[in-house]
């Protein structure tokens, strides 16, 4: 995200946090110091007890058995592909029911409790006792927390018992299936794993932060990233209008002198048989099927995409729409960028230069470790009036450090990046790069879990399954584990183990190569996981419930805050808006990225200044919405369902992340509630 507060060095979020922190300090420790000093646990407990009893009177706790009944009912109609999926669905139902239940209970309780006390004037007999507004606010919130906590305990116990009950017949089913001699290899290894580990086995899974799909892996050149015509190389750039303005020209605007893109690539022939050694009889004729291959050379198309992956610059504006030819490792090619294209780049500030291989017979290598201007894989050159004024704009530095933002990607598939098997095209390699991960081996082996979507082929073809080779490369030594041939099924986990010695350094790559012809996998960074350690399901469930409880407390604070000044129906509406606001903005996040202004401006056309006004207006509005959303709580931080249903350990970072959101949003809102309540005339 661009730094909008360059002058202060602080982002709007940081400024917001500081303001919130100062507000909390002033409201609680200056304005409310008297109330804070005479805070009584006894009074808070008394008020919370009344809230709890009120919820019992309202039969709120009866919602728990109702939700349980709903879970049991829905579970009867679930369609599962296997035993683990059955458990996964049941866990999902249970957690959805408990999360929904406590959130609704928290909204209703927190928005109506204070309003009703004021409506019925019961508040008269409470505030006329030696009870401070701080104690009232805390007592109410503790009461809400007690109610939601009780609901979660009930739902947690139910989940545990119900899962235990459901596991028994499913385990019997596994035994029965294993007795079947016609069982496929995939299913046998899968069922044996489930029998051995149990259906509720939970583990700590580590995923690779750096995931790329490469066209070729050359152990002799470990630092070179190769792509084939199935992949694209993405290089992130950040620019400012000033950077794109030619120096030494009076009143110049960005792009007045156009720009030149310089790419330094390595073309590497990978298929002798398909290589066309001679020119066609008539070099002016183009093969209608494979027109790009007429010279049998590596060629690359260059595109410029915005942060959403949408094309930003029309093809004719880059090198006149022509591809460039890559010769060898020293191939340095130049492309012209139209002035109009540079003007568009000046609007977005951040974009990707995307290279796509065209010729299937060649891999295109890039050397991302070369960070000098002379050897960088790509740079943008802005011409100037003098030699000294010429600017070279380099890719963002994290591109060189192997971060996932940028690098070689597979084509976009329905379920992730496409990792294709051999066929007419070159097969790809999924490279999952782990750093600083030291798994606990079991019997000298480290378990891996592999779960891809099979986008084409696979399950549709009953005769042949999808197979892949998996190996581990220790980056510190360069040693490779033997290839393991594994069977894959769409969205089903394959369990693999590899000798622990290849994981010893903690820095290793897991390489997945599809060997089944014409198969295409949908791969994400989560498709390959290393089992770091075992974990207890009960602890995982407890963490999940704890996270839900934190969300319920946050919802209660928001609801209470709204109800201090608003009637309960409006308070409920506002609470829901505040809770879901950020999530809602996230749903349309793609339309609110900084590039939206440039896209709109480009589609409307006009001269540079008009386009800039349009782009800035749209970007400003999008930024405003984003900033507003950033100041709302991120409820995604409380999401644990996806992990627990996959029997993956909820990491402590999830709990601390949820706690942090509760702290950052909850405490200032609570302080604001206290200030509002203290200044509120409770007599209607």
């Amino acid at each position: 995200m661009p730094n909008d507060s360059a002058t202060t060095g602080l982002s709007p979020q940081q400024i917001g946090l500081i303001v919130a922190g100062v507000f909390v300090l002033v409201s609680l420790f200056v304005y409310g110091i008297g109330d804070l000093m005479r805070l009584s646990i006894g009074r808070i407990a008394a008020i919370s007890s009344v809230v709890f009893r009120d919820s019992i009177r309202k039969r709120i706790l009866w919602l728990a058995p109702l939700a349980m009944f709903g879970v049991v009912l829905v579970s009867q109609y679930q369609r599962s592909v296997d035993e683990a999926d059955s458990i996964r669905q049941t866990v999902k139902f249970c957690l959805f029911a408990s999360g929904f239940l406590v959130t609704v209970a928290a909204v209703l309780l927190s928005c109506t409790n204070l309003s009703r006390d004021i409506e019925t004037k019961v508040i008269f007999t409470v505030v006329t006792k030696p009870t401070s507004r701080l104690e009232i606010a805390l007592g109410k919130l503790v009461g809400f927390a007690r109610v939601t906590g009780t609901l979660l305990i009930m739902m947690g116990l139910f989940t545990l018992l119900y899962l235990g009950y459901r596991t028994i017949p499913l385990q019997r089913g596994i035994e029965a299936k294993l007795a079947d001699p016609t069982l496929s290899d995939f299913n046998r290894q899968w069922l044996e794993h489930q029998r051995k580990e149990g259906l509720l086995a939970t583990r700590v899974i580590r995923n690779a932060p750096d995931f790329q799909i490469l066209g070729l892996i050359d152990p002799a050149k470990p630092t070179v990233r190769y792509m084939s015509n199935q992949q694209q190389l993405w290089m992130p750039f950040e620019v400012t209008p000033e950077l794109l303005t030619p120096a030494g020209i009076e009143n110049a605007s960005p792009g007045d002198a156009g720009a030149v893109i310089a790419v330094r690539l390595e073309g590497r022939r990978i298929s002798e048989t398909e290589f066309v050694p001679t020119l066609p009889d008539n070099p002016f004729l183009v093969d209608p099927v494979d027109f790009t291959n007429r010279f049998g050379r590596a060629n690359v198309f260059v595109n410029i995409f915005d942060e959403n992956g949408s094309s930003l610059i029309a093809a004719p504006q880059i090198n006149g729409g022509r591809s460039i030819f890559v010769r060898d490792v020293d191939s340095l090619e130049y492309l012209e960028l139209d002035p109009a294209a540079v003007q568009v780049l000046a609007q977005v500030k951040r974009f990707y230069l995307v290279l796509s291989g065209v010729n299937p017979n060649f891999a295109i290598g890039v050397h991302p470790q070369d960070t000098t201007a002379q050897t960088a894989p790509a740079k943008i050159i802005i011409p100037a009036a003098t030699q000294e004024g010429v600017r070279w704009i380099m890719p963002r530095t994290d591109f060189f450090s192997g971060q996932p933002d940028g690098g070689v990607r597979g084509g976009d598939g329905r379920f992730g990046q496409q990792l294709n098997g051999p066929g007419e095209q070159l097969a790809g390699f999924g490279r999952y790069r782990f750093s600083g991960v030291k798994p606990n081996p079991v019997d000298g082996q480290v378990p891996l879990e592999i779960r891809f979507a099979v986008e084409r082929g696979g399950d549709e073809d009953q005769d042949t399954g999808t197979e892949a080779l998996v190996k581990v490369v220790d980056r510190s030594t360069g040693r490779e584990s033997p290839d393991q041939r594994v069977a894959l099924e769409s969205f089903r986990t394959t369990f693999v183990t590899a000798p622990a010695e290849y994981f010893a350094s903690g820095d290793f790559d897991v390489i997945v190569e599809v060997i089944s012809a014409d198969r295409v996998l949908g791969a994400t960074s989560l498709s390959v996981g290393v089992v770091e350690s075992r974990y207890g399901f009960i602890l995982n469930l407890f963490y999940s419930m704890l996270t839900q409880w934190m969300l319920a407390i946050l919802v209660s604070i928001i609801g209470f805050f709204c109800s201090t000044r608003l009637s309960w129906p409006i308070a409920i509406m506002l609470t829901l808006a505040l809770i879901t606001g950020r999530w809602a903005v996230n749903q349309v996040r793609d339309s609110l990225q900084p590039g939206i202004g440039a896209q709109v401006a480009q589609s409307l056309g006009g001269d540079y200044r008009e386009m800039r006004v349009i782009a800035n207006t749209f970007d400003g509005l999008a930024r405003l919405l984003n900033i507003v959303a950033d100041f709302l709580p991120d409820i995604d931080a409380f999401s644990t369902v996806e992990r627990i249903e996959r029997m993956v350990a909820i990491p402590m970072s999830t709990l601390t992340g949820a706690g942090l959101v509760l702290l950052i949003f909850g405490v200032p809102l609570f302080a604001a509630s206290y200030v509002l309540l203290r200044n509120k005339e409770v007599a209607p």
Partner: protein
Amino acid sequence: MQMSLSLHLERKSNKNPKFEGPSMATAVEQPSAASPGRFMGPTDAGLTNPAVEAAVHTRGLSKLYTDFWGRPKVRALESLDLTIRRGEVFGLLGPNGSGKSTTIKLLLGLIFPTAGQAYVLGERAGSVTINQKIGFLPEESYLYRFLNGEETLHFYGRLFKIPRRELKKRVPELLDTVGLDEKARKRKLREYSKGMARRIGLAQALINDPELVLLDEPTTGLDPIGTREMKDLIVSLKNQGKTVILCSHLLADVQDVCDRITILFRGKMQTLGDVKDLCQVKDVTQIEATGLGPLQLAELRAFVDKLGAKNAAITHPTTTLEELFVRVVRDNTQDGSSYTSSH
């Protein structure tokens, strides 16, 4: 048979004698017409420092209700200067909308004044700490209806941080005092009759053994015996040295128990003073005599004229508080509008 005679002699020909009130030199304070409720200085109510010494002391206390946009809507109380001495039973009277409840709410911090100050037991009104010494019975029993009588008292007792052991002792005593039997105290408040609700409301007001008790319409909903018991309780509280502020429409009750009263009308204090003094009719003389036989009755006029009656007692007759109240309200309703009209 002993006979009693009471004869009224009017100095002025007036069927509806105008209230004049006692002189300012007596214990009665009379706010000036020009500036109603004007603060009367350090000698107010005979106290040198009323803000500290008095049970309640207000100075220019005003409350203006505004609408959502901050525009003035209702002036509920206007510049009230009032001092209530410790240990007295004080009646706060006035028709509906006169500012009685507003005054009580201001004293309890339920609402905030637009102008002026109010002190309760030496501290600013609305202070959380001073609530430790206050008991408040609202006009209706605003209590949690899902709790039973005992639970209610335990809840309010915990707000006062009364130790559990002491609460176990005090709660049954209080329930006995207000006349709620064993069966009643186990029932939820939503099942209580209005009279029972008043009793439990009174009990919660007394749970902390308060120094100052504010009773808003305490006898509403009570039967005659309950009303009598309430009045006895108020007298008993006075005898214990507690200050009681009574807000009631039942003027006979007020007259029975109050030492002093004030009558508010349209947010302004109209009169203030001792009940006995206020109820005296100054322009009428009353002669009371005992020991007069039937024959002497015929000669009464001449007898009086000659001032020859034995044991003659010449006093001012008293009116009822109700008559006083009606007269004050009527005198201040000059435009013929309803006495409860908004202002």
